[in-house]
């Protein structure tokens, strides 16, 4: 090949790089490893990473069963190693599956249009809010304190640097948004009200009430959904103007936090302000049905600085996992699945109520609940950890006002015996002031 090109050595090709910058040494990265060594390396890391632990963690990342066929199908090279479907004639597989994804998201959320995916639930929420800002021409935002704390942080990052004022509405004793407070915070400048339902505590918000308040003032309501499985049994926030969802629960591995699958769904009339890719149906020269990326004039590669967002690569393959999961469970399965989550959680909350205080018990919840204990939950968790069990998420860091509280989650995978064991271990420390030994353990499990 060198000959064909007419050069003597490959280095000649790097001549354009000023000599003084060229690297004359090896990079300091691990030496080349055989495939067997690579596999061993990651197996080892896996053993250091909670392999085989029982967990009661949720809080925006949920452990649901992943049907085997998801990986069988997404592992097909035709899906795995294709690029964004710009060339429609040889991308119909990806395009039709996205069209089906958009359809199912609409069916589940009660919205009219959905996009092909966003990075995750938190960025989807932020982009949804900016969408409202563009649509209303207003710039301030009111968000709920019962929204996932990290989602709030992300919105803050996106908003503050654009000089968008944010105000936060607290929650009441029922674990729901304090509607009176919210109402006061909404002004003529409020572009959007952002809430989550089921909210961070697993409590289902009174969406219609909040929608009414927001709309009365001409603000748009953006609802974030972090636990997609709830849609099987919980009425979707149909009164919302935009829904920003995290679909990880639908067949996406926990994977230590990502990749996940954000989605934005909204009303048809808002579609031209929607960020992200959209697939539309059309016909070919022979009138045969086909699918293409459409409304690209919203996007960066056409509109550049005037685009609705800078998003380009999204989470396509993860959206395909979600798509397959939704197809496997479908109309009946999703409901039954959600029911099991509800039942396990109801049982667990009931058991905990016997030994600790379960907060917000009055309001409807899906698969998470907050348990308040006399003991510091971090101490409790270090005790559970010795039994290969990961307890609920200590809330001190996010909600100091709740004292010794932790957020517990149960899914269809949580067994009764695991619940009973955990409840027992929590009860053990009842009333006891944390011993020194336990205190020692605290830091390590603190988040």
């Amino acid at each position, binding site marked *: 090949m060198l000959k064909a090109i007419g050069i003597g050595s490959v280095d000649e090709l790097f001549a354009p790089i000023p000599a003084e910058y060229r690297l004359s040494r090896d990079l300091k*990265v691990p030496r080349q490893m055989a495939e067997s060594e690579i596999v061993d390396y990651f197996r080892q890391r896996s053993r250091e990473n909670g392999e085989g632990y029982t967990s009661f963690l949720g809080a925006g990342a949920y452990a649901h069963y992943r049907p085997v066929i998801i990986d069988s199908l997404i592992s097909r090279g035709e899906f795995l190693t294709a690029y964004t479907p710009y060339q429609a*004639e040889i991308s119909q597989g990806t395009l039709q599956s996205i069209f089906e994804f958009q359809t199912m998201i609409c069916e589940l959320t009660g919205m009219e249009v959905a996009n092909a995916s966003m990075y995750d639930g938190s*960025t989807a929420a932020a982009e949804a809010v900016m969408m409202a800002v563009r649509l209303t021409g207003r710039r301030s935002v009111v968000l709920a304190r019962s929204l996932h704390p990290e989602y709030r942080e992300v919105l803050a990052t996106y908003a503050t640097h654009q000089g968008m004022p944010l105000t936060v509405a607290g929650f009441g004793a029922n674990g729901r948004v304090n509607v009176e407070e919210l109402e006061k915070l909404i002004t003529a400048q409020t572009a959007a009200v952002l809430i989550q339902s089921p909210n961070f505590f697993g409590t289902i918000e009174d969406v219609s009430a909040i929608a009414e308040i927001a709309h009365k003032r001409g603000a748009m309501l953006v609802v974030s959904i972090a636990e997609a499985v709830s849609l099987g049994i919980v009425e979707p926030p149909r009164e919302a103007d935009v829904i920003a969802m995290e679909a990880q629960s639908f067949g996406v591995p926990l994977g230590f936090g990502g990749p996940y699958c954000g989605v934005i769904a909204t009303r048809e009339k808002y579609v031209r302000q929607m960020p992200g890719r959209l697939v539309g149906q059309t016909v070919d020269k022979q009138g045969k049905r086909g699918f293409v990326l459409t409304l690209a004039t919203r996007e960066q590669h056409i509109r550049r600085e005037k685009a609705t967002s800078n998003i380009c690569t999204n989470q396509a393959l993860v959206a*395909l996992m979600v798509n397959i999961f939704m197809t*496997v469970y479908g109309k*009946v399965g999703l409901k039954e699945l959600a029911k099991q989550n509800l039942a396990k959680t*109801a049982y667990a909350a009931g058991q905990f109520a016997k030994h600790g205080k379960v907060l917000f018990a009055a309001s409807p919840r899906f698969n998470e609940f907050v348990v308040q204990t006399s003991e510091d939950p971090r101490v409790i968790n270090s005790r559970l950890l010795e039994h290969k069990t990961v307890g609920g998420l200590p809330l001190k860091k996010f909600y100091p006002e709740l004292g010794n509280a932790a957020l517990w989650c149960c899914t269809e995978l949580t067994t009764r015996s695991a619940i009973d064991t955990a409840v027992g271990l929590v009860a053990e420390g009842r009333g006891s002031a944390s011993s020194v030994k336990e205190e020692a353990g605290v830091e390590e499990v603190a988040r």
Partner: protein
Amino acid sequence: MKNRIRKATLHVNQNEGLIFEKSSAGKAAWKLPPLDVPEVDTSNLLGSSERNDLGNMPEVSEIEIIRHFTRLSTWNYAIDLGMYPLGSCTMKYNPRVNEAVARVEGIANGHPYQPEKISQGALHIFKTLSECLIEITGMDAITMQPAAGAHGEMTGLLMVRAYHHAQGRPRKKILIPDSAHGTNPATAAMVDYAVENLKSDSRGMVDVGALEAQMNEDVAALMLTNPNTLGVFEQDIHKIADILHAKGGLLYMDGANMNALVGKVRPGDFGVDVMHLNLHKTFSTPHGGGGPGSGPVAIKKILEPFLPTPVLITKADGTLGFEYNRPQSVGRVRAFYGNFGMFVRALAYIQANGPDGLRQTTEDAVLNANYIRKGLEGTYDLPYSTPTMHEVVFSDRLQAKKGVKTMDIAKRLIDYGFHPYTTAFPLIVPGALMIEPTESESKEEMDLFIDAMKSIAEEVEENPQTVLDAPHSTRVSRLDETAAARKPVLRWKPAV
């Protein structure tokens, strides 16, 4: 057409409707274990929040799902099927071992909030990859949080913005060459910067004179892609950096084209202050039909205080953990820690290559691009004769005379068994043919490609219509995009 086309042929292919069209009540592909806790009265628990109907969600059997997606998949082109020379996309081989290790139990199922004590495995992967990327880029620190390149651009510019604020003199604009990718200006706008265009010179490089003139205290940074989207290395890169730094500006590098540099030169060494990487390009994580990606941002010391939270640290006891308390941070850009699954794949890629393998990879990528340039020079117009790095950009000037545009040639390539190159980008080349073979392609495959491109050029002369009507061998012919956009149908609805 037949005799010319050596790499592809026609074969029978299954049709497949929408999944909703196969749905009928009673079919199911799911089964739940028996409930081991008491049944609950859902309406009692949920009251008015209870949902009763899931609308038109499908009901199908497992074999129907397997067939549905298997059939759909056969309508896609993919790297696994052949050369995919999309310029700027670095469509290299996606090693299968990456997929295997990403699915190892503790790695696939780790919860982001599980105690750090039992997360050392994931954190070790995180740390090792971070160190590798810092070494490869020659920078001082990195954030792994961004989910893709554009997200990385935003994160980088937020740090630039925070830096200038901390300096006490915020700035208004970002300079962006006219050859830049669309995400660059879009990102600048997202973080509330004005975008100022920077002209390229006759060599397709930044016009240093123009830069000198346009640079002032209002400029926060220059966003530069290097090698740029013409596949040309910005030879005056050090001058460019100096000009910016002299006036307190920063140099942002879009690292989408790092596949031309890894192991041969480090951006940190030639003056870059902040840059993003695309693990889904340079580091072989699969594109998956449009993601997931990962866009880590590597920075120089001066920007470290502004890194998004949390930041990975080694704690007093030697274990790894996250630091959340960083007062000057720009804040989070997403929940949790980034697309961790992609970190696993990228690290596996680095391990499989090692220092020599990484250098070799870069050399092969550049060699391949030059081989294709040589093979097609003369047949297609080469607007810039500047030396080519990892990709080469031709134009359709010669073919346009016959009314054949770059998109037509691209569609015709499909009949020849190839995925098209990138069309109509960069904008500074009207009718661009942007070709990036990557190191993965063998000489055999590239010869077939060069052959196909030449054969198409002949077809343009002999009978342009064949090319204008292409593709001829796909199950659908060219689709009506205008109609799709005029009356958008974005979801299936049951026939009423």
